[in-house]
């Protein structure tokens, strides 16, 4: 994926600050925030910030990565359920891949996710690490 500056910057609220939206109609949380609640189609929301802790739901170890991630492989990619029920896809870092398991407790840390060559944009976001 090319790292267009505007495109990267648009995602700052969710990727940098874990900002989400709680639907005023049904109370479900959408992450990132959306204009329409995917559950009840409500359009009134209030901002919430996700707590950076959760559990691994399922995971894989990527041995053949996309080009942007060649320097990182093998790496663990997981679906993580955060406190409050929101699920995200992210890497699990600072861990022996063989030690990762479902239900493992993790917390999210702000990390470098990918970069556009030596002189291009560095895109940050969250990775999970063992809690």
């Amino acid at each position: 994926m090319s790292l267009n500056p505007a495109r990267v910057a648009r995602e700052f609220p969710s990727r940098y600050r874990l900002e989400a939206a709680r639907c005023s109609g049904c109370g479900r949380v959408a992450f990132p925030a959306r204009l329409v609640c995917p559950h009840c189609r409500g359009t009134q929301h209030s901002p919430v910030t996700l707590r950076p802790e959760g559990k691994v739901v399922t995971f894989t170890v990527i041995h053949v990565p996309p080009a942007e991630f060649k320097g990182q492989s093998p790496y663990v990619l997981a679906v993580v359920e955060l406190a409050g029920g929101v699920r995200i896809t992210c890497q699990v870092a600072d861990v022996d891949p063989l030690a990762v398991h479902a239900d493992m407790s993790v917390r999210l840390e702000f990390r470098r996710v990918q970069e556009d060559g030596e002189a291009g944009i560095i895109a940050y976001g969250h990775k999970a690490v063992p809690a």
Partner: protein
Amino acid sequence: MREVAIIGVGLSQWGEVWGSSLRSLWTEAALAALADAGVDKVDTITVGSMSPGLFVAQEHLGALLADEIGMAGVPATRVESACASGGVSLKAAFAEVASGLASVALATGVEKMTDVSGDECTAALATAADAELEVFHGASFPGLYAMMARAHMERYGTTREQLAMVAVKNHRHGALNPRAQYRQEITVRDVVRSARVADPLNVLDCSPITDGAAAVVLAELSVARKLAKGRPIVRIAGIGHATDCIALHNRTDMTTIPATTRAAERALAMAGKRLQDIQLVELHDCFTIAEIVVLESLGLCPPGEGGKQAESGRTALGGALPVNVSGGLKSKGHPVGATGIAQVAELTTQLRGEGGKRQVAGARVGLAQNMGGTGASTVVTVVEVAS
């Protein structure tokens, strides 16, 4: 709605076809289908193609390809739903014939995947996942299906060997299909010991990268009867289409594909059929786990029992419910936009009794399931021999 029949089928050569371009592959399939149908003009053309812009830097395929077979002037449109592009191409053409907008339609699919590097191909395919929420973090398609596989293994005890048996079965079938990309048989040991891609999936759990095109000619039933020349007439009894969220993590349950369940319910309801009526299935085995999860999502086995279907022989040629006798995506190949059309072409061939060494004896009702992404788009088609 008018009844719609499949009156012609055609495939191009499938594989790493370095000597053929997108347009020449498509032309080969289209001409074969038109010749099989015995027609030389159509009222409309649909082209399923996932990402010609990224694979060969060419969009606007409808007009390009209509002109390529001397049919400039005919309405022609590309339709896209990732790897379900072939399925939605069929549905678009079906809708035109069923509604009376067209009398004869050419429904096609094509993908030319080997003009780009492996990395570029991976990136193009990854556009079927959520770019901001999945791909940004390093997800690949094998990685997403690997997470489904692990969830299924942990919940139901599905084994590494059961995954492998899907590939073994489909290669055994593909060995009987002269059109298949990989016609050699493989063993469970081969799969388990092949190179790791995304744990627990290895390279032999994955469908290959394929150049290819497929085409079918649809016509209203009265036209089909005039052109049948004694061959059985195959009709589209039902077609169902459904969507879901494309980010896998937003699904409540990652061991099932709800869009497949909904699409199948819609197709069976339109056809007035029950699952027990289905005699053979072509389904979207882009990865071994996909065949297992899709069998369960279709309702063709209980949840958690998908891993046992290839193992027991039920889904093999000669079993009670043959699945992917063409070789499936795994062995026959997976030119993504062509797959949904090729599945229905295979069912038509089988229902006509023209399946050769891979013929399912006495088959009269078949089901095709074609999906995009991790199943966020699914098209299910039920075909039967018209009485």
